[in-house]
């Protein structure tokens, strides 16, 4: 029997935002099962079985702290999550006190900038992807005016604000930036009507949850909106197909790397295994397969980091390994110098997708430094 290496997950797997955490948890569990099935993961000459210990924080920062404490208790040093800003901020003291590196899906800059040391942003922040997308659309689609809409919650609002700033920076005219909606809105017509009156070329759904995206798209199209719609969060094609059908065609979002032209055989196998294990795939997991892979690869490169978080941090600056999920010679590296002044972000390729008839197509790929 192999010794066990435990990797933690603290995030939201129940309640309204369950989709975010569950896609994380499942992608980790799929990958762990796969590794264990094929004999384990070798680090420093020892082959480990990987065990995922996950904790449902119910999107409650109090619970998130308890979860992080639990991880410390289990002797875990590498944790994926939390999924939202407040949870990620709340666990910081615990993580730092207990030598835990954690990989949130949340964007507050201070989590990743010095003196903070233990958080690693595990996706592309919208203040990174946003500008890239807007720029692309300005250049290729002639977009000149943009409107933002966000749910009235911390994460989406913060994302909207940074999106607005980025758009202005690029010289776009922001025609509406203060319309918000409650996450439980069931009818978006009244919400969208005033914003569409400003006739933007591009409508940005800031930090939109997979549940709200199809409804927003559908309502906007039914109200006669003909411009572009985009978001900077990951979405699931199936959900879009069910919720908005053809109306979602042309919808731009950020994804991982499972579009046919990018996905490596390994990615395809991952999707297969995931589907076999959980009955249904979720495209959000494309972006969520990476954190675990980064942790394992980094440990492989620096075996002493299994117990020594400082070693992990030290190795981050020049860590590099091939990206197994993408075709070509993409590399896994840590980035973040521009945004945070230190390398505290995983270098997931910024893949911008367009939804078309039930699947995503790649629009363009960019990189973050």
């Amino acid at each position, binding site marked *: 029997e192999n010794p066990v290496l435990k990797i933690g997950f603290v995030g939201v797997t*129940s309640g309204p935002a369950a989709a975010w955490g*569950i896609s994380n948890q499942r992608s980790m569990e799929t990958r762990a099962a796969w590794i264990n099935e094929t004999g384990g993961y070798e680090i420093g000459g020892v082959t480990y079985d990987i065990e995922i210990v996950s904790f449902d924080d119910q999107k409650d920062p109090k619970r998130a702290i308890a979860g992080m404490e639990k991880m410390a208790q289990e002797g875990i040093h590498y944790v994926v999550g939390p999924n939202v800003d407040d949870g990620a901020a709340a666990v910081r003291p615990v993580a730092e006190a207990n030598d835990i590196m954690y990989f949130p899906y949340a964007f507050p800059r201070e989590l990743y900038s010095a003196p903070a040391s233990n958080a690693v942003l595990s996706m592309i922040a919208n203040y990174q992807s946003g500008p890239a997308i807007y720029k692309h659309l300005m250049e290729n689609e002639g977009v000149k005016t943009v409107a933002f809409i966000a749910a009235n919650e911390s994460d989406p609002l913060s994302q909207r604000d940074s999106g607005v700033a980025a758009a202005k920076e690029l010289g776009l005219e922001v025609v509406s930036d203060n319309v918000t909606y409650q996450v439980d809105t069931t009818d978006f017509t*009244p919400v969208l009507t005033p914003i569409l009156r400003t006739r933007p070329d591009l409508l940005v759904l800031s930090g939109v949850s997979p549940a709200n995206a199809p*409804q927003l798209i559908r309502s906007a199209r039914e*109200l006669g909106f003909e411009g572009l719609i985009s978001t900077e969060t990951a979405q699931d094609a199936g959900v879009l197909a069910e919720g908005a059908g053809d109306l979602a065609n042309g919808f731009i979002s950020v994804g991982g790397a499972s579009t046919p032209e990018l996905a490596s055989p390994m990615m395809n196998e991952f999707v297969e295994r995931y589907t076999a294990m959980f009955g249904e795939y979720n495209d959000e997991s494309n972006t969520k397969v990476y954190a675990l892979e980064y942790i394992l690869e980094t440990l492989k490169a620096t075996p002493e980091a299994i117990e020594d978080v400082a070693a992990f941090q030290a190795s981050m600056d020049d860590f590099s390994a091939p990206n197994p999920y993408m075709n070509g010679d993409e590399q896994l590296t840590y980035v973040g110098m521009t945004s945070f002044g230190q390398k505290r972000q995983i270098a997931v390729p910024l893949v911008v997708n367009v939804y078309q008839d039930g699947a995503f197509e790649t629009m363009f790929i960019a990189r973050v430094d």
Partner: protein
Amino acid sequence: MEQVMANGVYLGSQYAMIALGLTLIFALMNVLNFAHGQMYVIGGFVTYTFYGQWGVPFVLALFMSCMTLAIIGALIERYLFAPVIKGSAREESTMLLAAGIAFLLDALILLIFGEKQRGVPKIVDGVFNWDFRLIMPYDRILICVLAILSIVAFIALMQYSKTGRALRALAQDRTAAQLMGVNVDRYSMIGFALGAMLAGLVGGLLVTITGVNLGMGGPTSIKAFMMVMIGGAGVISGAIWGGFILGFMEAFGLAYLSQYGDITYLLIFVSLMIFLAIRPQGLMGKPWG
């Protein structure tokens, strides 16, 4: 303006239906059913499963979701609420129970239907567009009409049928109803089932437009509470008023206050508080007793 009015009617009709079920259960058992929103979500998922996944005709799927909820409601009343009401020193204990049931249903929904947002194919295509002054997709118009018809049917049931009369009597005085020959245990169950069924019906209707996901339950309950408060707890006409008032407030607020950002709901909440401070029993609430 036309658009705002239309939005108000549309929102109001669906809200009123949600509030009706809640108020019915409250009137009958003095139970503030925290799980009402979850019941609504289950209605959506059942309709999704039958209509969206298995291709059963929509009307049949709707019927199935009504039945499912009626059964769930009946079971919950029979095996949980009724004994707890009998055994507890304070009526309020039912709140704890209702919250527990809300948690349980949430957990079941997650396990059975999963975490994803679900939607079904449109029941009718096309958008009614009157010169861009009034835009309303046909399926919304249909749902709105169906909702209003259901409300009318429900009122007729409560006013003119024997069951309705028994339920109303039960709500006003249990013992007296018993003395009229109403089997209160049975009718409480029927009433609860009916309330739950209403939730299932709205869930089923709305899934065609908004889709459904497991997070919609809690917030829906809270909205329903607000409507019930506006109209007066336990009063049917109150629920309907409350639903439409909230619907119109949202429609107007969102249309005219949007440039101020996040304040529509804040304003709705604050005006609700002011309103209740002036009229503590809501619009139609009990003047006596």
